């Protein structure tokens, strides 16, 4: 794109949206250094919440649970969802409308209904509540988002590429591995990001299907809100944010130089 005034306007606009996204987070990080126990008023600088956080068994357990569940749910739902999206893209099904409907429904159903109805199911078939039920539930609500995202990516692709590969006697596996998969990758990554984001922050469904010893971070935080959110949670959020951003930046810097030429 030529660097015109239009380019600058676009850049400024995008930056403004980013400020909108990050403004509350900067405040949040600031309050992790606030000495008052409540996020109500500023009463002095401290780092004690970070120290306390490292010794808080409940918060750390909840954080580990959340991360484990989110990673497993993301991987499984991304694999299952991508497979389904490819099938929908490549093959014509007689019951296509039914399948589409089935895929959209989990997004349409209010969380509390999904949570409660799954709880009824789990208790009917006697799956004890715990991490397993949490993972099952998270996969269930992530799956549709992944299928939709990947499918929409595949739809924008030109089918000629796949046909060309087949004309060149590529096996279906080779076509998939070297043509379809790389082309679908942005969609898969986006789907996985959505799944992870949904899972790590889910409260309502998790509340109903969680059992003893499987408290996730959102569950813990929702409980804590009633007594007043401790800045420990701000500290944890700040650490999470800083770590993720740092990892992303480092991964970029560490990339081999050849990619840089594209700039």
């Amino acid at each position: 794109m030529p660097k015109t005034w239009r380019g600058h306007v676009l850049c400024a606009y995008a930056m403004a949206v980013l400020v909108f996204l990050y403004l509350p987070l900067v405040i949040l990080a600031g309050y992790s250094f606030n000495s008052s126990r409540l996020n109500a008023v500023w009463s002095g600088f401290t780092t004690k919440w970070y120290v306390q956080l490292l010794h808080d068994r409940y918060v750390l357990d909840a954080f580990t649970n959340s991360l484990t569940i989110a990673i497993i749910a993301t991987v499984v739902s991304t694999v299952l969802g991508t497979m389904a999206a490819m099938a929908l893209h490549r093959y014509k099904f007689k019951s296509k409308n039914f399948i589409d409907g089935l895929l959209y429904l989990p997004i349409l159903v209010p969380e509390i209904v999904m949570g409660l109805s799954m709880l009824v199911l789990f208790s009917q078939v006697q799956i004890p509540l715990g991490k397993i039920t949490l993972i099952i539930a998270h996969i269930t609500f992530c799956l549709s988002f992944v299928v939709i995202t990947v499918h929409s990516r595949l739809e924008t692709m030109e089918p000629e590429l796949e046909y060309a590969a087949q004309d060149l006697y590529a096996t279906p596996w080779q076509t998939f591995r070297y043509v379809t998969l790389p082309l679908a990758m942005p969609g898969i990554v986006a789907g996985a990001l959505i799944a992870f984001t949904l899972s790590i922050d889910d409260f309502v469904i998790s509340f109903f299907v969680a059992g003893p010893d499987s408290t996730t971070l959102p569950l813990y935080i929702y409980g804590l809100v009633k007594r007043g959110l401790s800045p420990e949670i701000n500290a944890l959020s700040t650490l999470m944010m800083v770590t993720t951003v740092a990892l992303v930046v480092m991964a970029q810097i560490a990339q081999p130089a050849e990619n840089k030429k594209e700039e």
Partner: protein
Amino acid sequence: MKDGRLLLAPAMGWLAFFFIVPMLIVVAVSFASRTPYGQVIFEWTLESYQRLLEPLYLRIFANTLWVSFLTTFLTILMGYPLAYYIVQLPKKWQQPGLILVMVPFWINFLIRSYAWVIVLRSQGLINSLLLKFGFIERPMQLLYNDAAVMVGMVYALLPFMVLPIYVALEGLDWRLLEAAYDLGASPFKAFRKITLPLSMSGIAEGTIMVFISSIGMFIVPDVMGGAKTVLIGNLIQNQFLSARDWPFGSALSIVLGILSLILIFLYYRAINGSKGGAQNA
């Protein structure tokens, strides 16, 4: 065809067992009755559906649809340029850019919402700044109203718009644009005739995800709106919790689901219609 079924089977099987089966229970409950203590008994009745037709509840439905429509519109307005900007970045910076957009959403939703409360409340950041520079004399009430609810909604759902639009734009054949420029099309015309129609699938997916999610939203009106508005999400929540009226809550959910399905269907028809038109032009 056989391969296709095999690929589809795990996801479908999963949903059939862990989603459809529970949903059938919900359908059954919506036709059931409630004991005085709030237990569900399976004496069939249409009462829950009849209650839905009361003007009070119809108005809540209408209000929710309006809020969701506005949220979707605003997320497109904010999300599209952002996604477009990220696509323009060098390849290497695109994925980090996307992750930067997503990171805020890995922080707990409640925490983020309360951070907004700190920004917007009467002694908050914005009011303090405006007071300091003399733009206002008394703090403005920025929170606990419809505008604050809207800020919260957009903030909560923006990534679900940015991601699909990015994915669609990323797959776009930019040579088409160059060709258009070569043929002397103005940037605006090129955007309207080429970029927009070709990224429509992304907007469509984003719209569906954002619209549907905002229809079921209930925490944002509580935190940002001071719980002074009732959306369907709140109403359903109340039926399962404080009112202990599971049949009515189930009926509300089912009608909400069907309504959303119809909207999606109509929306897709409209989109496909306009896309076909654009391609012919």
